[in-house]
């Protein structure tokens, strides 16, 4: 397994669990209020969905763009610029959080009145809304810091912060709701967000933490951040619009009795949110490789992501085809009149999950590579445009089954259309990643687990590769020497540990060697480092002889770049 693939695989569980935790967080207040305050409490919290969506949207508008730009700038070794984005993102997350809370405070009374709910529900919703304001101010920052720690390679802490938020929310909300009703539940949610922020602050004590403050930004960068974020957030906007259209159509065409089936269909489509974990796992690595202008390794990560995406989407589809009743029991559907139609609907709609999984992956990927427009068009087409165009047509031909069929088919059709467009634009060689052409031929990546035999083997291969590409004599030999000596130093510093490494030889702009390893963090490029062996002495002198060299801890790994 290559370095890139193994790192992607190590990020994947944390990213997937984080998405699951986020999914559960979205449900926790409804569950708590529903169980403690009854149906009135559940209805009051359900009225808050609009507020939750707004707060999530605000968080995403800062987070996605900043984390992609931060990792890409680190990939290009622009540390101050990367930290400039982090600084700007932090200011924006705090400012937008406060602004959101202020706006929510201002519109609370008229919006609740506009819902037209009963007096008891409205009163409870107003109480929840008021005490939710601190949480609304804090959540964008918690969301943002979690994603930035993740982009900086601290997947474990990022996951812990989600757990802290979920557990903090549940542990505090339950007694507070029992004591103070819906207001207590909202306070518990805010305390959960605060717990997440406290946990995430530990990342700044981590060795190799690259999140830092820099004035190296301009306020026009906010537009850049928002542009990238909007590409990613388009899936949420598209889904919200689809839900609105579906509800209106189903009620008008089949009546309210079909709404429970629609609820199951919506939840089945909603499972696809979990598939975002694949793109999230790929993002830190892919963005760094994109920043390095390394299409070979970018493709390697994305191929791994593609496989994971298909496995997740296909796996869940097969599960639901075999056991559609799982979805029914989640929403408590047991009426004999509804069960057969709901089971069939779940089976039909589950066919969309592999395509949706791919759509979500490429929605994020095209944002990584700066194709926000393509990302938005593909996603809107898959989650809104084609379904809305097809379900009235199919519905009039085959009734409700036609509606579910349209939802099952639309993402695959959208994916097919986008694939044709990408093939036309980038040709077969550029499909589906649309990376700049012409750099791959001069790039070569070697992967190894550090031990003397494999290190010497890669060193010899680097020498042979350079020789085959016209780089001869002292330069080729120095490159091979650098690879052997530097990796042997890393090997010696990590005695008893299994360390994976990746060596990239880039001949696009002169000769550049990139060494990456997941051993203990240290700076091998420091020519003044303490020397305790002949090898250390040689490496120290080599560093003096290679004037263009950089060490940068990136996504939690050592990364050393040398220009020879």
């Amino acid at each position, binding site marked *: 397994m290559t370095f890139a693939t193994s790192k992607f695989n190590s990020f994947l569980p944390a990213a997937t669990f984080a998405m699951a935790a986020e999914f559960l967080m979205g449900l926790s207040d409804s569950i708590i209020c529903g169980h403690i305050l009854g149906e009135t409490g559940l209805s009051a919290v359900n009225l808050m969905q609009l507020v939750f969506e707004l707060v999530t949207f605000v968080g995403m508008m800062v987070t996605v763009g900043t984390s992609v730009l931060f990792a890409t700038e680190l990939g290009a070794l622009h540390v101050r610029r990367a930290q400039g984005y982090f600084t700007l993102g932090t200011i924006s997350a705090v400012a937008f959080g406060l602004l959101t809370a202020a706006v929510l405070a201002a519109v609370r009374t008229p919006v609740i009145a506009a819902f037209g709910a009963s007096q008891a529900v409205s009163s409870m919703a107003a109480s929840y809304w008021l005490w939710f304001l601190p949480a609304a101010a804090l959540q964008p920052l918690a969301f943002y810091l979690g994603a930035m720690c993740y982009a900086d390679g601290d997947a474990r802490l990022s996951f812990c912060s989600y757990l802290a938020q979920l557990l903090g929310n549940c542990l505090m909300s339950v007694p507070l709701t029992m004591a103070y009703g819906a207001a207590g539940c909202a306070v518990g949610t805010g305390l959960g967000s605060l717990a997440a922020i406290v946990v995430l602050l530990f990342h700044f004590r981590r060795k190799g933490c690259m999140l830092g403050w820099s004035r190296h930004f301009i306020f026009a960068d906010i537009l850049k951040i928002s542009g990238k974020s909007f590409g990613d957030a388009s899936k949420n906007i598209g889904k919200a619009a689809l839900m609105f259209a579906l509800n209106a159509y189903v009620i008008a065409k089949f009546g309210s009795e079909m709404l429970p089936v629609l609820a199951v269909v919506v939840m089945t489509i909603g499972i696809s949110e979990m598939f975002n974990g694949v793109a999230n796992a790929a993002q830190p690595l892919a963005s760094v490789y994109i920043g390095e202008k390394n299409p070979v390794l970018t493709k390697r990560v994305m191929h791994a992501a593609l496989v994971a995406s298909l496995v997740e989407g296909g796996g869940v589809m097969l599960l639901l085809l075999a056991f559609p009743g799982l979805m029914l029991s989640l929403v408590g559907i047991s009426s004999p009149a509804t069960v057969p139609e709901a089971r069939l609907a779940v089976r039909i709609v589950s066919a969309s999950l592999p395509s949706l999984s791919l759509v979500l992956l490429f929605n994020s990927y095209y944002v990584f590579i700066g194709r926000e427009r393509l990302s938005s068009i593909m996603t809107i087409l898959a989650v809104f445009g084609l379904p809305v165009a097809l379900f009235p047509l199919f519905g009039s031909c085959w009734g409700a089954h036609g509606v579910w069929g349209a939802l099952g088919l639309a993402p695959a059709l959208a994916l097919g259309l986008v694939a044709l467009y990408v093939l036309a634009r980038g040709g077969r060689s550029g499909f589906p990643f649309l990376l700049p052409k012409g750099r791959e031929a001069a790039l070569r990546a070697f992967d190894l687990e550090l031990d003397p035999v494999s290190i*010497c083997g890669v*060193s010899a291969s680097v020498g042979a590769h350079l020789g085959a590409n016209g780089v001869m004599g*002292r330069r080729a*030999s120095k490159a091979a020497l650098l690879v052997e*000596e530097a990796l042997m130093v890393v090997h010696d510093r990590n005695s008893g540990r299994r360390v994976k490494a990746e060596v990239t030889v880039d001949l696009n702009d002169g000769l550049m060697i990139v060494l990456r390893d997941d051993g203990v963090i240290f700076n091998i490029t420091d020519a003044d480092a303490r020397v305790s062996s*002949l*090898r250390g002495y*040689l490496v120290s*002198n080599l560093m003096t002889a290679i004037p263009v060299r950089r060490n940068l801890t990136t996504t939690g790994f050592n990364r050393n770049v040398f220009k020879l």
Partner: protein
Amino acid sequence: MTIAVSGRVDTVTAPELEASLNFGDATCVVIDLAGVPYMSSAGLRLLLASHKKMLAKGGELQIANAQEAVREVLDITGFSGILNLV
């Protein structure tokens, strides 16, 4: 006594080379590096140890025909001033 070495001298091959070197009673040993395209610190350590061994018994070690790439390693480390390069 002249010993001709060929191939890469690296972390893996240097111990094998060291095990096969036997200077016997020779007081002047020439290590011919014409066939060595590459040498890492493991090879340097071997040359230094051999040099010290010869000095200890009042003899001399000479390094001959070092290729350009090997000579650069000797230069970078300053070994070219310690060893007798011919």
